[in-house]
């Protein structure tokens, strides 16, 4: 069981890292989600795997049974899943907005925030030259 989970974690992390290094924006976003899944699985496995009873205290008792699973990693992984799911939703919407606004889905061509250098020693001047509201600028 441990080995199966270890292989699953390894596959998720490897696939996620591979997708994340792609140029295609959709693959990058998918890679983040897959990588997050791998990390969650690893966090879950940190509580030790095994055929254990659910961590519920029976009525009348005050402590867990000795065979019960460790509840803490379950709580941790639930937190991480919620955060990861929210970020995955956000990143898909962001991807749609980016491709709609720029018409580009290639990470190496997405250079709006950092325009590529046209001159070897100086960065390019701002495109239109500041705001058009400045009255001293020649039209």
């Amino acid at each position: 069981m441990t080995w199966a989970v270890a292989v699953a974690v390894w596959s998720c992390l490897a696939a996620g890292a591979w997708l994340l290094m792609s140029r295609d924006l959709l693959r990058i976003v998918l890679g983040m989600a897959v990588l997050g899944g791998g990390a969650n699985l690893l966090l879950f496995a940190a509580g030790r795997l095994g055929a254990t009873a659910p961590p519920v205290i029976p009525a009348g008792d005050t402590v867990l049974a000795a065979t019960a699973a460790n509840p803490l990693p379950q709580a941790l992984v639930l937190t991480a899943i919620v955060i990861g799911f929210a970020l995955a939703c956000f990143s898909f919407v962001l991807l749609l907005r980016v491709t709609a606004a720029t018409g580009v889905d290639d990470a190496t061509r997405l250079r709006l925030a950092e325009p590529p250098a046209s001159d070897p020693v100086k960065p390019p001047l701002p495109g239109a030259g500041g705001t058009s509201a400045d009255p001293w600028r020649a039209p």
Partner: protein
Amino acid sequence: MSAVLAASPVLVPMATAVATLAAGRRSRLQSAISLVGISALLTCAWLLLALSAADQPAHASFGGWAAPYGIEFRIDRTGAVLVVVAAAMGAASLLFMGSDADPVPRHPMVLPLLHGLLAGVGGAFATADLFNLYVWFEVMLVCALGLFAVGGRPDQLDATLKYLALNLFGTLLLLVGVGLLYGATGHLNYTALGDAVARLPSGLAMALLVLLVVAFLVKGGAFPVFAWLPASYHTLPTAVLALFAALLTKVGVYAVLRTLGDVFPATPAILSQALGWIAVATMVAGVLGAAYHWDMRRILAFHIVSQIGYILLAIAIGTPQAHAAALFYTVHHIVVKANLFLIAAIVHRLTGSWDLREVGGLWAARPALGLLFAVPALSLVGVPPLSGFWAKLVVLRETLAAGQYAWTAAALLVGVLTLYSMMKIWMEAFWKPHPHERWRLPRDTRLAPALIATGSLAAVTLAIGLHPAALLDFASRAALDFTGGAR
């Protein structure tokens, strides 16, 4: 009472965020609630500082579970002073929003997200639980993404995507590190974790520690994993940018300090050496990146990276004096860096561009602004008697005491190169005449709130510079809490 106060760095901004969200589109009401919230946060932060200075650090265990099992908040001197500075930066940023220099988009989500960000920062400084620290990093990430994307310009969306991808990688690395540490020790509380890791085989402990520190270095913007910072920061409106510049990377650096200084104080020598050289590379890479640029925001963004290197250098040396130096440097740097961005926004408002080739003439038109710029700029360089001089002095003294002369030389060289960048801004924006002959100083500006915010931050820089002993003594006591407190 102490428990409520210990949770206040999270509770107050979160309550403010909810209240501003409820105020919705009534922007006046939203601003009023937001100012009340930040004042309350500042008050709580000062109380926390007073408590920690009286050796009664505020403390809370949540859910009725005692220390090593429940989530614990413990605000010692280090946490308290950083919460105070974070609250002050929030106040300066909100005050600056009242001016018309680089206005923040009038979107009803801006203020709730800003307070959410402060909640994340406060939680990270307050918590004594590793998984909880991860959660606060995620809270900061989510709120930061919102603030990036809320403007909706294509370059901001581009920056959001890059910020998301590179930061999420760091966060996931942290999550993997937390999971493996929990698997190896069965603990998440800092104190219990420190004791348990000491009993692990040294190779395993070292591997886990490296994973954790690398994750924090991504968050802190260290070489070579700082690319997210200069790729995105300059697209933000300046009031938000100053807050990001002041706080976000510093939380990552604080986490490194807490991890290596407090939780796992027996840092292997090879890890300290590696961190020291990473710090040197961070300093040099940041300052050289800044030298290339002409956009004021991009120059200053690269200088964040460069200054992070100094703090990491102090952490790498690892003595209590060096930890005190790191804390002193962090406080100085937060104030100075936020102020420089805010002043750059005033320059932009008055001259019409961010690019230094397109601006000028401000020394003739506004000499007082030139003096105001000189305070944080010279402090960043390290000119006496400003705060940066003492901060650099204590860090350099520790590198010499540790016999790391190469690190001292690198730090001094980077200081000179920092002077180059600050002189570039000074010469281009203030000294030379404006390149457009028809340029006149804009008349209908509303800069009073911006000048009050930047003036107050400059006053803090001057006060630390003229009386460094107060903060230095406090930082030394804070560093003694580290190794002597828990064990």
